[in-house]
């Protein structure tokens, strides 16, 4: 389960070179982020609140534009081809799909309609789509129960499942997952990562996931990048990161004595930063 390297070595699918992102023409958020996602790999993007994970993912999927943000420097290549100027829909055509942070289900559509919109770009026929719908329902039985409810009226976790399921419906080649575990019950978190892993292994889908739950993320990922204040401050194979003492203390919450209780953190403690 804990392979330190992606199975299929070599080919890089997605490559981000030293990008800089500015919001609203004035707010500089990413200050030169580079990363690469190998074909068939699971790559984790870690970092605290506001580090720029979401921004990085949106830059890749070209959704920044609609937030009045822009990539001002650097380049993003997918399969060696520059994709920065593509429309988001074209990128989906190419097989890159993003699951956005904060769910973003279509409120007025039913759960099932939501899932079906995921298959919007597919051309492989009704049968295949129906089969995938079944697959998603098998992954998330809760969704099957709520299939006819408007997504706006489902619980937070149900919406999260819906958003993930929707992305799976498009049969992508690369999935950008933004905080997939957020708001999900613990056993479901394990399950989601299980799904990620199995989809990755069985169908060769590559993942780039931004995740706060470092613990799980590093358990399933092959490679990790740690982002802080818009810069990559550390990267390495997941197994190595897991052993790094700083990562251990600040991201995994374990110190040499083992896991600390959340009750013991009451004394004031300054966070150590790689950058000041």
């Amino acid at each position, binding site marked *: 389960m804990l392979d330190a390297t992606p199975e299929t070595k070599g080919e890089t699918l997605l490559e981000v070179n030293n990008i800089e992102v500015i919001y609203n023409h004035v707010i500089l958020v990413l200050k030169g982020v580079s990363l690469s996602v190998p074909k068939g790999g699971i790559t984790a993007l870690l970092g605290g609140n506001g580090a720029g994970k979401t921004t990085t993912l949106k830059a890749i*999927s070209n*959704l920044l534009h609609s937030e009045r943000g822009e990539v001002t420097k650097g380049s993003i290549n997918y399969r060696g081809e520059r994709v920065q100027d593509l429309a988001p*829909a074209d990128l989906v055509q190419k097989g890159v799909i993003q699951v956005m942070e904060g769910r973003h289900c279509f409120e007025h559509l039913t759960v099932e309609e939501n899932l079906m919109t995921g298959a919007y770009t597919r051309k492989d026929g009704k049968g295949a789509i129906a089969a995938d719908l079944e697959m998603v329902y098998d992954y998330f039985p809760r969704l099957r129960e709520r299939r006819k409810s408007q997504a706006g009226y489902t619980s937070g976790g149900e919406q999260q499942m819906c958003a993930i399921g929707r992305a799976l419906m498009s049969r992508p080649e690369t999935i950008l997952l933004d905080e997939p575990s957020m708001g999900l019950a613990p056993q479901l978190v394990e399950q989601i990562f299980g799904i990620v892993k199995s989809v990755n292994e069985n169908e060769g889908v590559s993942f780039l996931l931004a995740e706060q739950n470092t613990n799980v993320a590093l358990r399933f990922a092959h490679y990790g990048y740690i982002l802080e204040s818009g810069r990559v401050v550390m990267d390495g194979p997941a197994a190595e990161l897991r052993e790094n003492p700083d990562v251990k203390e600040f991201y995994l919450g374990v110190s040499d004595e083992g896991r600390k209780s959340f009750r013991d953190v009451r004394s004031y403690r300054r966070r150590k930063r790689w950058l000041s």
Partner: protein
Amino acid sequence: MPEQLLWAAEAMMNGLMAGVLYALVALGFVLIFKASGVFNYAQGVMALFAALTLVGIMDGQVPFAHLINAVFGTEIHHFGWHVPAILAIFLTGVVMVGLAIFIERFVLRHLVNQPDIILFMATIGLAYFMEGVGDLMWGSEIKTLDVGLPQGISETIDEATYNWFGYGFFIDRLDIVATIIAALLVASLTIFSQYSKQGRALRAVADDHQAALSVGISLRFIWVLVWSIAGFVALVAGMMWGAKSGVQFSLSLIALKALPVLMLGGFTSIPGAIVGGLIIGVGEKLFEFSIGPLVGGATENWFAYVLALVFLVFRPQGLFGEKIIERV
């Protein structure tokens, strides 16, 4: 008094017919709102623009003739040909598609994910713009639109009702044609939006631009598609109203008659536009017929709105609109 009753019935029939004409305009609003959450203020101007273009093409007018003459001192006005109605309608349809592409390219594309009110405002800017361009292209004099739609009292109905009730009902033949066209439009648009993949995509776009983008729905395509359809609906509405009152600026004001219809039927429901239109049409005609004379008449403008308002207090999303989701 049976006579009073007959009159009321006649007023009601005419209300139904007027309602259909309102609904034709409202339909354009609904389409765009449903498909992108944009409240398209420019719908009325689009109807005017379509009608102007239609007349211009039919009469072989030179577009921007006035401007060209002013700049180059030339004296050109007409190409000197007449285009048959059917062909002209088709060509106007093409122009409306061009307009949709233009709007997507220069306006909507840059306003993805903005709040509703901003998009609404943009359509107002658009309305100004199109009004100006329409005038520049075709001139602001009044034009007569004659695509061969029948007009005037329908004698069949007049006679039939005369034989039955001893009082001949007045029904305008134009209204009858409008009703048939509206029914066709509504039926086909409902089927399109309910049962096609694109229909689902439209509703998704209306809910959340970003999420729609993220699943690979091309906003550009959707917008061009929808604005083209709305442009076509505007052309139909412009044709009907233009036949009634000539083609000139006031045509754009019919949008105001469509708003209460929209509100009552629900911004997101295509059948709602028709039902809303009928209720408003009947309501205002009956009110004007019964109460109007007591309060000095000309009540139609506000009564439609008040009627719709009363409905809304009981159903804030209109009769058939999508329920407004309120959750935390």
